[in-house]
């Protein structure tokens, strides 16, 4: 222990200690590690859900629902890929559909050597209900729980079966002294309905648009905007809205909205689609 520090009188020492504490922050490299752990680090984008894997997805398991969160978030609106959107929505809405191995693999994530605390942390950090499922400590348990709670979990590669772990109700034999009890089944179930509602609302609007019923699509989008003022799928709703405006024949307004969309969301995954739409509206306006 530093003699210099302890030579200070008690009051000064306390002041110095607290001053040091206030200056403390994340050490070098921690930011990158945490970004990577949350699934938003450099390079994570390339691993984000693909159309191919989402289109074959379907599961009623908790893990499946979280996979759907990720898949639906980016895919549900469709914007030209109706098959994909239907499948993504079904992942949430059908309780007993089989699970896509690719989604399960991506879900189980957790390639990083996380400490075994993580399973417990996820449940308690969430403030979720007390344990529902008991998991064996180790990489598999960690990956299952992380996948259940991390909306970006599908970013990460994986090699374990999250579904089996998430659905397990039998305590596993524990090689160490710690029982990892995870209460996230309940919390995930609490969250899923809201997102599922959003997915359903936008899927209905998209379907209406596909049936050339722009008026109905407007009505459904309006309902969505009112019901989910801070919805997770608002960007997607915005893109769908401007497409609906164009479908109804008001390409000039659709072009204005597309330009606003691109101004506000230039890096959105939907930006390239909106850019293409804007270009086509522009062409038709100039060459009717």
């Amino acid at each position, binding site marked *: *222990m*530093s*003699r*210099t*520090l*302890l030579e200070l009188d*008690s009051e000064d*020492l*306390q002041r110095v*200690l*607290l001053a*040091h*504490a206030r200056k*403390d*922050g*994340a050490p070098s490299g*921690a*930011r990158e590690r*945490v*970004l990577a*752990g*949350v*699934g*938003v680090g450099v390079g*994570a984008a390339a691993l*984000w859900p693909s159309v191919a894997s989402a289109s074959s997805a379907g599961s009623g398991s908790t893990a499946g629902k979280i996979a759907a969160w990720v898949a639906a*978030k980016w895919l549900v609106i469709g914007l030209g890929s109706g098959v994909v959107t239907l499948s993504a929505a079904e992942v949430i809405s059908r309780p007993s559909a089989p699970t896509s191995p690719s989604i399960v693999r991506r879900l189980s994530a957790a390639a990083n050597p996380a*400490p075994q*605390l993580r399973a*417990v*942390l*996820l449940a*308690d*950090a*969430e403030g979720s209900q007390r344990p529902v499922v008991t998991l064996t400590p180790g990489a598999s348990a960690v990956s299952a729980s992380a996948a259940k*709670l*991390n909306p*970006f979990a599908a970013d990460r590669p994986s090699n374990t079966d999250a579904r089996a772990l998430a659905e397990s109700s039998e305590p596993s034999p524990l090689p160490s002294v*710690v029982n990892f009890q995870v209460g996230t089944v309940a919390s995930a179930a609490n*969250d899923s309905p809201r997102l599922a509602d959003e997915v359903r609302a936008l899927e209905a609007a998209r379907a209406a648009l596909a049936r050339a019923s*722009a008026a109905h699509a*407007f*009505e459904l*989008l*309006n309902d969505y*905007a*009112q019901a989910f003022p801070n919805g997770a799928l*608002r*960007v997607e709703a915005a893109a769908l*809205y*401007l497409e609906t*405006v164009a479908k109804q*024949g*008001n390409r000039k*307004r659709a072009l204005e*909205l597309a330009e606003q*969309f691109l101004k*506000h*969301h230039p890096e959105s*995954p939907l930006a390239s689609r909106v850019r293409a739409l804007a270009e086509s509206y522009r062409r038709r306006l100039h060459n009717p």
Partner: protein
Amino acid sequence: MIGPRAFGNHLGVADSFALDQLVTELPADVTTPRERARALVNEHIDFLWRLLRRLGVPEADVDDAAQQVFIVATRRLAEVAPGSERTFLYGTALRTAATIRRTLRRRQRWLEHATLEAASPDHTPHEALEHRQALALLDQMLNGLDDELREVFVLCEIEDLSAPQVAAIAKIPVGTVASRLRRARQAFATRLARLKAQEAKAR
């Protein structure tokens, strides 16, 4: 029927206003959940790291604890009012740190960690060494506080939060915050004085 309807008049400007807001109301700088998550981590990682450490999360576990806090925050970002992100992170960090402390105690690694970290050799330059020693000494003092006192002490004395803010985060009455803070200060000062006395005796 909720709000203005756009159909029937081919998108008159007034009637389509609510829907236009879908496009115009989202912030321009943070456009996707992924970007929002990145922004959240970038803006708050330092304070969160510091908070977790002072709340007793061993250095080796802070990466993972911080990760979990951000994962939870990211999932619930839509529910968090703009400007309240830090408050949300405080609450989540308190729960995370409490879980870690409980788990470590069960595994009886708690004191080992504290001791090892306090005693670990450090070959960094003088200032960094002093900083590290000060933090080790501080953690040694904090480790001796009850969890509920420690949380209030850290939030008030290190994070400079007011009693009402701490009350909201910890979900306890303001009066309880005040009494815990008073007891924490007393306990902290007593432990510090005892340590100084031991050191003086040893010399």
